[in-house]
């Protein structure tokens, strides 16, 4: 059998990649980056980097970057809550997770955005859990019925209870790490087991241009020491917080990611790091950051190519839309983004369900996007030679009446070769009318209800539930919060 090729998209020539990296090295060494965290500054000083104490500007030599690159793993193995199913983050493996940390949810009935609460988060987790093509969970919604102070730990607390999938999350405060780490350890049983089988990825966003805030830097250090993969989320906005050219933004992107990677490696040599981001093409007319812009996707695809060139696992915010409702724009931006992402081999693709410049999640969109993800996976599975010969035997003694429906070859292969989406409309016009002239959003809404009704949540055992509750309650108490919302199923 002839080997199947994995379809790929590469936007940059090798010469351009190398030039971008060279300029990034030059900036790191000559201009440096701002690091607003004392512990990181200490680590950098100990590594004999030049630190300007008054401005907290650090100059990082290319030699240190190269050393740190060589100690960063090229593959990360994540495990589900039970520690059984393994997911490889690296090479050309791709995993979708819902776009993270939305502040609102699109209410299907009123078609209005509203703040999300505990019940919405539970539904979101339970739904994501059942969507086949969304491999990872993300703490995709912020719950407005708890104070902001604990919204980072609270979303992970709910996520770990209602989902078995590995989870993409992150801290909103320096103190948030401890309870979140404790919860992950509680799931695994010990710190050692958490290092051996990571369950969560923590996002850390540098502030463009070229600044690592105290909070995100602390997250990098804490995660590195705990063996938790850090996903570096550089997010330049072309012409606003990064150079206007795509190649120029890529230079800044590399500087920010490599400086983050150095901090991780200095905190713990061999710490898992993901070369990621959420940059955007800045819309000069509206002053907005469209995630569905083709230029945004080009930046994402290109930095992922650079990440691969550096032999690192990659991440991007793709497969999402800026539309406010589930309309054509929501579908096409998500579709194009998902296809570009998988062809670029981005390992962790955060986006499904998300709309309105990363601010809103929609359960209906999540269901629709799951099917987009399914098609994207099918695309990269490529075209295979299934049989020897391919097909010429099927034509032996063919007549004008020959058809392929009843051939064993058809029954054997059709489900491998073709996928069958659920909410995408493939009915005849008459049957579609008979079914009530529904839009894809109507069907997705019914699918959300069906999934939630038919699939009770996968709760962990009672001891673990209690342990998680204990950690959450203690964290809330430390923040002066005496009670947490009741969880209704």
């Amino acid at each position: 059998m002839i080997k199947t090729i994995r379809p790929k998209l590469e936007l940059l020539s090798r010469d351009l990649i190398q030039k971008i990296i060279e300029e990034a090295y030059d900036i790191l060494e000559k201009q440096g980056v701002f690091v607003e965290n004392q512990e990181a500054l200490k680590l950098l000083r100990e590594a004999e980097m030049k630190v300007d104490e008054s401005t907290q500007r650090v100059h990082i030599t290319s030699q240190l970057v190269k050393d740190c690159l060589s100690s960063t793993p090229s593959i990360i193995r994540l495990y589900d809550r039970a520690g059984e199913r393994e997911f490889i983050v690296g090479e050309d493996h791709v995993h979708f997770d819902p776009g993270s940390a939305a502040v609102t949810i699109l209410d299907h009935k009123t078609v209005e955005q509203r703040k999300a609460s505990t019940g919405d988060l539970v539904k979101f987790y339970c739904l994501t859990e059942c969507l086949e093509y969304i491999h990872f969970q993300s703490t995709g919604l912020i719950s407005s019925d708890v104070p902001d102070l604990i919204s980072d730990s609270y979303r992970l607390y709910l996520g770990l209870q209602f989902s078995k999938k590995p989870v993409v999350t992150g801290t909103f405060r320096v103190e948030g790490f401890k309870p979140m780490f404790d919860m992950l350890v509680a799931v695994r049983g010990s710190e050692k087991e958490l290092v051996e089988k990571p369950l969560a990825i923590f996002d850390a966003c540098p502030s463009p241009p070229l600044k690592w805030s105290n909070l995100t830097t602390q997250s990098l250090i804490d995660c590195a020491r705990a063996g938790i993969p850090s996903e570096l989320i550089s997010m330049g906005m072309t012409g606003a917080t990064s150079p206007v050219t795509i190649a120029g933004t890529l230079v800044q992107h590399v500087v920010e990611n490599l400086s983050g990677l150095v901090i991780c490696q200095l905190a713990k040599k061999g710490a898992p790091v993901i070369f990621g981001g959420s940059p955007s093409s800045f819309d000069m007319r509206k002053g907005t950051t469209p995630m569905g812009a083709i230029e945004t996707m080009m930046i994402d695809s290109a930095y992922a190519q650079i990440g691969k060139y550096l032999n690192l696992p990659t991440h991007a915010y793709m497969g999402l839309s800026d539309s406010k409702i589930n309309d054509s724009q929501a579908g096409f931006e998500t579709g194009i983004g998902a296809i570009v992402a998988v062809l670029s081999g981005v390992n962790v693709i955060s986006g499904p369900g998300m709309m309105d410049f990363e601010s809103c999640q929609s359960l209906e969109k999540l269901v629709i996007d799951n099917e987009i993800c399914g098609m994207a996976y099918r695309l990269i599975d490529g075209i295979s030679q299934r049989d020897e010969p391919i097909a010429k035997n099927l034509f032996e003694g063919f007549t004008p009446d020959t058809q392929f429906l009843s051939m064993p070859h058809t029954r054997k292969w059709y489900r491998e070769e073709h996928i069958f989406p659920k909410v995408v409309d493939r009915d005849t016009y008459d049957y579609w009318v008979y079914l009530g002239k529904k839009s894809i959003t109507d069907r997705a809404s019914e699918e959300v209800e069906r999934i939630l009704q038919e699939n009770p949540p996968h709760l962990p055992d009672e001891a673990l539930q209690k342990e998680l509750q204990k950690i959450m309650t203690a964290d809330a108490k430390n923040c002066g919060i005496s009670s947490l919302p009741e969880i209704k199923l």
Partner: protein
Amino acid sequence: MDKEELFDKMEKAIIEGDKEEAESLAKEAVKENLDLNEVIEKGCVPGIQKVGDLWEKGEYFLPELITSAECMKAAMEVFKPELKKANIETRSYGKIVIGTVEGDIHDIGKNLVASMLSANGFEVIDLGADVKLEKFIEKSEAENADFICLSALLTTTMLGQKKAIEMLKEKNLFGRFKVLVGGAPVNQKWANDIGADGYAENAMIAVKAVKKLIEE
């Protein structure tokens, strides 16, 4: 093999679409002198019914439907001459003349409908594709058919369905045969407009439509 075991195996062969197995089980049934109508009733029919259920549940798609129907057909091909020799009537729910109307050479949909009707116990006379309208009528009269099924895939040839019904009226045969229409451009409204007795969206619905017309 005792007969119960053979019934089970036949049912399984039909569900799994294993044509060779269905055929060899049929031959074995003949060799063992089993009551062939019992084999059909207790082996083949439950098999094809299960296939229909799996289709309704959305687990089986067209390839499973048609391969299973072909298994049924393969077994029946073995039984028919034996039943005829022994002068035993096979139970038929009705006689159906089917074909794609003149000017239209598309017949995959029609073949599916024919296979499913046949697998569900109807006697199907398939005239093929590009069939002259007169021939549908002649054959139906000669065979004393219960149903005429007219397939058309093109918007141009679907007019043939209308013409065929007009011809039946001219010959005072309208009402003697139930007429069903199908094909990609055809819909219920068209069926109503031209005075057809039934319309089916797909092969499984065609079986239901025919059964429903019998009950009426």
